[in-house]
């Protein structure tokens, strides 16, 4: 069992004249499960592939377990990768798929057999060993792909959107298994995904990336609770955070936000750090907006989404802006109803014109 830390030191990458990653530094601790989260094209996969050695590094250094690897071929870096489309060798049996890498480094036969057997046991794919990938279901292929990584006993596991090709139910199940697997192996793992739920549920730390920049690095609840930027706030959490333009008033050092229709949201954001000029917007998650008789903000319900345990209401406010509020599962509200909304000011955030977030004091 070898587990290593991965250090990225001022790593840069260009495609032609376009700089896709610039001077990025990041340390992934030994045994950590880290997720690179972001929309497609944000550079998260490129970064992963640079670590794997599948993309050249134009500047900076990558070290795995302290050893500089950015000049080594992929095979020499001691990492294993699980690809989005699994990239199983279609003409080889499952067993051969698992054995291929080990054979290439001259692992003795009996050792290969032992590891395959062990991996097959862990992943419950023993009965599939003689089959070819074409004869497997998507979930089985996924397991084989993981198995191919597992047998190599790598310094780090790299997952590139491994769940995106599974159907919803299987995705949830696999997610849990991956989490369990990591808890048991404690192997350094980098997990690339565009799905915030996967990142939240699996990772101990999340690197949120957008437009080739790192927006925020933090634990799942940090990311959720204190998004550093408007992008993070919108990207993480479902439904996306509501944003409403506001005027700020002083309330004993804390900011009170006045909405377009004049109603008030009392935030815990200190006034001190806020920019003096420029527009500000308040960001509130749906779960912090409730329907209450005494709610101060009136609005008309346009669309109702019932999720069973809760209900999302798409509400148009008096000034024409819309937001999503949450009500209990068995909500009696009908489209067209007028509702009164109450904001939990304590979980509200403020965002400046540049999208930078201002949070309540902790």
């Amino acid at each position: 069992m070898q587990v290593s830390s991965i250090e990225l030191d001022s790593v840069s990458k260009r495609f032609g004249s376009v700089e896709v990653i610039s001077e990025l530094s990041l340390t992934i601790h030994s045994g950590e499960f880290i997720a690179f989260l972001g929309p497609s094209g944000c550079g998260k996969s490129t970064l992963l592939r640079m670590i794997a050695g599948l993309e050249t590094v134009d500047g900076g250094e990558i070290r795995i377990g302290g050893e500089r690897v950015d000049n080594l071929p992929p095979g020499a870096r001691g990492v294993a990768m699980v690809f989005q489309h699994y990239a199983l060798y279609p003409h080889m049996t499952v067993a051969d798929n698992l054995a291929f890498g080990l054979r290439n480094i001259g692992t003795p036969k009996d050792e290969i057999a032992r590891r395959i057997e062990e991996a097959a046991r862990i992943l419950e794919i023993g009965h599939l060993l003689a089959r070819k990938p074409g004869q497997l279901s998507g979930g089985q292929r996924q397991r084989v792909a993981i198995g191919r990584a597992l047998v190599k006993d790598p310094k780090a596991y790299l997952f590139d959107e491994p769940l995106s090709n599974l159907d919803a139910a299987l995705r949830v199940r696999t997610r849990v298994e991956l989490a369990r697997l990591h808890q048991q192996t404690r192997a350094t793992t980098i997990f690339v995904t565009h799905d915030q739920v996967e990142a939240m549920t699996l990772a101990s730390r999340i690197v949120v990336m957008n437009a080739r920049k790192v927006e925020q690095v933090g634990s799942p609840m940090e990311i959720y609770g204190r998004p550093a930027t408007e992008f993070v706030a919108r990207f993480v959490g479902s439904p996306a955070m509501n944003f409403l333009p506001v005027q700020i008033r002083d309330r004993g050092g804390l900011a009170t936000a006045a909405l377009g229709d004049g109603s008030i949201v009392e935030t815990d954001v200190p006034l001190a750090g806020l920019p003096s000029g420029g527009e500000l917007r308040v960001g509130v998650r749906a779960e912090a907006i409730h329907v209450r008789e005494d709610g101060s903000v009136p609005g008309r319900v346009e669309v109702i989404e019932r999720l069973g345990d809760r209900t999302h209401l798409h509400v148009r406010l008096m000034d024409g802006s819309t937001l999503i509020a949450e009500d209990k599962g068995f909500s009696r509200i009908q489209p067209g109803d007028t509702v009164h909304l109450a904001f939990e000011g304590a979980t509200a955030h403020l965002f400046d014109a540049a999208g930078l977030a201002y949070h309540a004091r902790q």
Partner: protein
Amino acid sequence: MAASEHIVGRGIGNKLILFTVILVAVFWMLPIAWTLLLSFKPNSELMISTASAFQPPYTLKNYTDIFQSSGVFRWLWNSAVVSVGVTAGILILSSLAGYGFARAEFKGRDVIFILVLLGLAVPEQAVIIARHQIFSDLKMHNTYPAIILPGLSSAFGVFLMTQYFKAIPKDIDEAAMLDNASRFKIFWKVLLPLTIPAQATLGIFSFLGAWNDYLWPLISATKPEMFTITVGMASTQTNFAQSEGLGFLMAQAIFAGLPVFIVYLFFQKYIVRAVAGAAIN
């Protein structure tokens, strides 16, 4: 398979079409049937009139005569050697080059690839005179290499294989890289097995092309013992043969066409698939 054959109400139309096509197919086979018929007639009768083909006597002599006259067997053998040689050569060279152009980066690769693509525009006939001179100067004519090698310069196979390799998801090679496989191993163990459909397409086209090639063997294989079946059959269809040995000539034609036709019937399914494969590429 067929898109509309099950749609209700089109049965009669479909039957009519099928009937027409069967009729056309019968006409399509008439020339071969006629040849077959002539091949069973004694030469001397045909010399007076081919109309005698419709009446007995019929004979197998024309076919048994083939076994005695040395030519056809030797020519079939030559054709087989040449076609297999060309096919193997093209498959090896095109696979290597196709992988190289699609996957293995090196300086100047794209420029070289464009130069190779330009080669698609050069018809064999345009270089045939110069090629003949070159092989003459090397004193290589009337050898198997001389008949085989020019076929290996065709850019078509390289183009086809490059396209095919490009279409294979790159993550397969990447997985292999992470599995510590060398370049050649990735080519040989991982990607090449995936190109078997393309190999089949290219192989069949190359084989048929080489088997049926006429112009180059005609001027390169000039010794009768080096004739391919195509050139050999050309050498037999002189005026004299037609007047005095018509039945024998027809028997030779049937006999010479038979091997590749049988191979075709045998591999029909694959050939159809291979042609379709080429079409979709």
